[in-house]
């Protein structure tokens, strides 16, 4: 089913994924974005929330084209005879259904992409997209609350209903997956450069201990650290309020006062990590695991003793989409284990689809039978990687971030946590 993947090409692609993502988010896109966001925001109308979710959106036959906006290198890629990039799992969809897919990997940040679409939603104009992918968090909640994404018809996603992993079902931010279906998922934990730390790093407390990590040598992730600090303190972020937020802030301040923190990152921590500026950092599982597995770096991804933060990137259909029926068909397409496997073998994120692990092990065997021992070994290692295929025990120790649902909450949250990273 899946074509063998050239490890060199995969490695290159993964490297590009990391550098491109961090680079663009950190700087270039920010600069381009500031003017664009301001212009778009300035031009936006005042028509209030988008239309109420229509019940008959998903009636009728699908259109013949789906416009799909996603994050860079978040799709399995191949090459055709002319050296042009192809997307095998999308091509298979087109072959099966006759629906073409206009796939663009142009989302670099949730807030920025949201900012681009917002004026169109406000004006009641179509965004031009049939599928968008947004991480759970305030922007996703704003989209669902404002009625800017369609409610999905469960009857049109049989594969999802049959094969979605438990953690991707009925998530806290979207009851009964009314608006969302998971694309890929991941965990925020601690990345450690073993050459640069003293002793073992097991929890966030170690990132506040200069004896273990030195001074000015720890990276913290701005968006994730309030939730991570709460989990560290034994607080379930989901059930937290301003009191708990202030507890988390106090811990973050304590860490800051300890002098270990070098920088609070929105993006780009991995660049500093790679060149040795950081001894340890809050990190996304895939980033650290990639360098450990594929580049034999002395890195370790630590799942904090007290638990870790779980996040999901979600597919949604924005209001005004020209082809919602085609869109939900494509979303459901990725809930077939064979298709999900094509994706996961390439992007190396946590899959929300059951049955992929077995397929991946089967594929590893095939690679071995074909004499490609290296690919077989790495595929096997991926198949046994708990950050791709978490056990129930493992998932039980993860927590969702606090789902902010009102402007007052957002304002209070930011007022509490922004001063940590901005002064």
């Amino acid at each position, binding site marked *: 089913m899946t074509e063998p993947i050239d490890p060199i090409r995969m490695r290159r692609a993964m490297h590009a994924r990391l550098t491109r993502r961090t*680079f663009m988010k*950190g*700087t*270039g896109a*920010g*600069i381009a*974005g*500031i003017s664009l*966001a*301001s*212009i778009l*925001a*300035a*031009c*936006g109308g*005042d028509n*209030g*929330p*988008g239309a109420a979710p229509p019940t008959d959106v998903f009636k009728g036959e699908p259109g013949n084209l789906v416009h799909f906006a996603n994050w860079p290198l978040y799709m399995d890629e191949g090459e055709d005879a002319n050296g042009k990039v192809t997307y095998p799992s999308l091509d298979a969809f087109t072959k099966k259904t006759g629906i073409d897919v206009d796939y663009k990997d142009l989302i670099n*940040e949730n*807030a*920025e992409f*949201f*900012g681009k679409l*917002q*004026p169109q*939603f*406000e004006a009641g104009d179509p965004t031009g997209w049939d599928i968008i992918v947004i991480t759970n968090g*305030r*922007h996703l*909640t*704003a989209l669902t*609350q*404002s009625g800017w994404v369609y409610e999905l018809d469960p009857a049109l996603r049989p594969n999802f209903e049959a094969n979605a992993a438990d953690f991707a079902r009925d998530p806290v931010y979207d009851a009964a997956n009314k608006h969302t279906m998971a694309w890929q998922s991941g965990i925020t934990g601690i990345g450690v450069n073993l050459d640069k730390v003293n002793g073992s790093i097991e929890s966030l407390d170690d990132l506040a201990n200069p004896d273990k990590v*030195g*001074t*000015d*040598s720890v990276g913290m992730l701005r968006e994730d650290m309030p939730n991570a600090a709460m989990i560290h303190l034994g607080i379930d972020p989901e059930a937290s309020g301003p009191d708990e937020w202030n507890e988390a802030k106090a811990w973050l301040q304590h860490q*800051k006062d300890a002098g270990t*923190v*070098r*920088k*609070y990152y*929105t993006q780009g921590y991995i*660049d*500093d990590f790679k*060149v*040795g*500026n950081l001894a340890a950092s809050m990190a996304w599982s895939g980033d650290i695991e990639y360098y450990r597995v594929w580049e034999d770096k002395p890195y370790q991804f630590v799942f904090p003793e007290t638990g870790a933060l779980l996040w999901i990137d979600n597919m949604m259909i924005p209001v005004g989409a020209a082809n919602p029926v085609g869109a939900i068909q494509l979303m459901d397409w990725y809930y077939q284990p064979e298709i999900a496997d094509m994706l996961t073998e390439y992007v190396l994120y946590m899959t929300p689809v059951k049955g992929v692990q077995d397929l991946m092990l089967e594929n590893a065997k095939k690679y071995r039978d074909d004499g490609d021992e290296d690919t077989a070994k790495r595929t096997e290692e991926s198949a046994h990687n708990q950050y791709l295929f978490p056990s129930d025990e493992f998932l039980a120790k993860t927590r969702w971030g606090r789902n902010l*649902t*009102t*402007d007052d909450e*957002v*304002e209070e949250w*930011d007022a509490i946590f*922004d001063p*940590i*990273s*901005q*002064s």
Partner: protein
Amino acid sequence: VSTTLTSPPESGPEAPSKRGDRTLGTRRARIPYFLAAPGIAWLGLFFLVPLALMLVESLKTGGLFSGGYHFNWEFSNYGDAITKNWEYIFRSIRISAYVTVACLLFGYPLAYWIAFHGGRWKSQLLLLVLLPFFVSYIIRTIQWTFMLSDDGIILGPLKSIGLLPQSYHVLATEFAVVAGIFYSFLPFAMLPLYVSLERIDKRLVEAATDLYASRVQAFLKVVLPLSLPGVFAAVVLTFVPATGDYVNAELLGNPGTFMVGNKIQDLFLNKNNYPEAAALSLVLMVVMVVIASIYARALGTEEATNMAAAG
């Protein structure tokens, strides 16, 4: 700019050639306006219109969960912009002041040397100064992060031979931010200084020394005053954009170097809080205009400019 746009019609290059030929006279008087029209249109379209839009934006209210922002004469945005962010504004002004002083200290001697001693190599030397402009500003700044990384090509060897302690770092310090902005803006400071120094009649310096002025006195009493318009332009061209810079603080700084530009970026891109971002941008703009005006008065630049223009 305003001088350029308004003065030509008043002091039109030539009076109408014949008395009574009013049509021709009016036409001629209009020519400068026609010539200025593209510039005025450009300013209107790309400066005044966005400024007006920003003003409108800054008076909106709403939020992420209120279906966007709605115009509501929300003047409290300005209060918030000032009370929540004065720390960043002051910090930016301080960092920018360091940068400006550094640019003058390094840029003036450089410009002086090229203008007075560059000889036939002047153009080539100027090209060298401008050379960094051929590479994108952001790429250049990112390059510093590679060069100055803790174990990078500069600090790595120095650490391994024991000249620097292992924990020493340049990145993620205020010094790195000041140095980064200084590096980026030095040509902006250098060029106006060079232009004003180059225009100085060298015989004036000779005359001063003939009249028993020492070289230092000649510099202080002749060269420096005549170059003041250049100094003024250099300061404005450096100080104003440096205050709003956020790239260097983002890439080279630490939490303590978070500048007002970073805050505006954060409000725009991470918080989608356009009204407060717009209000803060306008507050910053007003602050900069006020500072520049006070500075212009204090330095008496108009006189200096006129004097130089007359010379």
